[in-house]
């Protein structure tokens, strides 16, 4: 069985994102970049399946500027076998990414595409589902447990009031919840080995895929947390405000 894991290079989730002074976007220059933590969970799961000999090959793919190679190296240091880098200078939206992935799914023929349910930068939570639709495959989203058997995947999904267990007919697109596992720390020897693993580099421009922008970012702003702060003098007054003004109880 073969698994394809798309990985995205994003602003590290410990970094407080900084809005550019002209509000055109978020500052990414000079900021620490890391693998999207949801994707890290996907890599970890794929590598575990390989270690259990259920899966024979784990291929990671990243789309972005040349530096995304670092993200592929991180995934390979965790245990992925090889990488595909699709270079593009533009920020791509989920629809475009899904189309690019569709191209590589056709080429690589994996049994499962295992990917983060969302990227921690744009939080769109859509690429996996769009890809599944384009491929006509089953989809399992927000997965916190994954078991594979011949031609099938039993998944546990995190949903609003608990968990749902589904059986997916393979091939399928599966998107991961952070609860799926706790990713490993890459060891130093494995980081060194990863430097020698193969990466195939393709320029997005050479693929002839339509990635025109459909959703334009007009501006961004820091979300404010300042509120009115009405000081009430008694619990009765608070109850009154909550019941009649805010209407939350």
């Amino acid at each position: 069985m073969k698994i394809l894991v798309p990985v995205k290079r994003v602003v590290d989730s410990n970094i407080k994102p900084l809005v550019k002074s002209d509000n055109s976007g978020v500052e990414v220059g000079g900021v620490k970049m890391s693998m999207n933590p949801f994707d890290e969970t996907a890599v970890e799961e794929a590598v575990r399946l390989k270690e259990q000999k259920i899966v024979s090959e784990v291929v990671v793919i990243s789309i972005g500027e040349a530096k995304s190679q670092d993200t592929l190296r991180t995934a390979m240091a965790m245990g992925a076998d090889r990488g595909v880098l699709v270079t593009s200078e533009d920020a791509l939206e989920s629809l475009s990414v899904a189309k690019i992935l569709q191209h590589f799914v056709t080429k690589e023929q994996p049994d499962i595409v295992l990917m983060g349910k969302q990227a921690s930068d744009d939080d769109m939570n859509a690429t996996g589902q769009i890809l599944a639709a384009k491929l006509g495959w089953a989809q399992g989203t927000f997965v916190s447990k994954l078991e594979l058997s011949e031609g099938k995947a039993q998944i546990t999904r995190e949903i609003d009031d608990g968990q749902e267990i589904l059986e997916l007919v393979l091939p399928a697109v599966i998107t991961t919840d952070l609860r799926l596992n706790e990713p490993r720390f890459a060891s130093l020897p494995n980081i060194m080995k990863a430097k020698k693993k193969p990466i195939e580099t393709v320029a997005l421009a050479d693929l002839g895929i339509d990635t025109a922008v459909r959703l334009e970012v007009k501006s961004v702003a820091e979300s404010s947390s300042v509120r009115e702060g009405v000081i009430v003098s008694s619990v009765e007054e608070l109850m009154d405000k909550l019941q009649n003004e805010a209407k939350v109880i």
Partner: protein
Amino acid sequence: MAVLVLLSYEKGDKIRPISRSAIAAATQLDTEVHALLVGENLEILSQKASQLNGVQKLLVAEHSAYAHMPAEPVANLIASIAESYEFIIAPANAEGKDILPRLAGLLDVQPISDVVEIIDTSTFVRPIYAGSILATVASKDAKKLLSVRGTTFEAVAETGGSAVVEKIENLPLSEKQLSIFKELKLSQSDRPELEGARVVVSGGRGMQSAENFVLLEKIADQLEGAIGASRAAVDAGFVSNDFQVGQTGKIVAPELYIAVAISGAIQHLAGMKDSKIVVSINKDPEAPMFKVSDYGIVGDLFEILPQLEAALKAR
């Protein structure tokens, strides 16, 4: 062209409040609002849905294949009727976020997730970077697919509407079933999970001990709320890490957030600032938490919490 809203409901034939928020969002688009109910055994639900305020027409797609809302056939179904709609809205919950992007893939549209504000018919505001930044985005797609957050659109009333009910007869069901439902495990705990809770009651280091968290639990019991904590409280050993709300803990956005004895470190605010209503109880009138609260009481929590519990009970 009209707007179609996918309804989300839970067991006991209850339409989720977030569906009513989605309808509220739809009414801002100045066009006819249609609602879509998908599933099996929808008799009671369709009756309820037809009364939702603001809905002109209710479409009902009933079939056993739709039980538990599997994304693959439900997306196919919506795609089959999508031609008549300029907007398709789903609630930004697990169901909506599962189905809507798949539909977008079928229709070749870039979906817009977690919309918190509609500026005009093609411009929307949505949070990015775990809610710390708001992005204003403009869609160039002819058809707009949105999932909307419940907290910022005030839900329409459960009654007051009288929608025309129309059954969808031509259901596009394929022979091949891609995913098979096995089991639903509802959360066993009496307390909702922190991240999805409608009410969160959080305590800080001023709670003084683990035992005193019982006072918060009593409030949470009255409101069916979850318990949270600031990092200071976690570090002091009052509660475990799982309860921590904040930048390095859980990010919550309940309708009501009650912060008790929490000073309001910026790290904590990062985890709860999207809450709809914030109440702060603190003995220090200078606590920064008051600046980010809608309502505050200055005083001793050991006096205020029992009073609040009694008032909630009496309600």
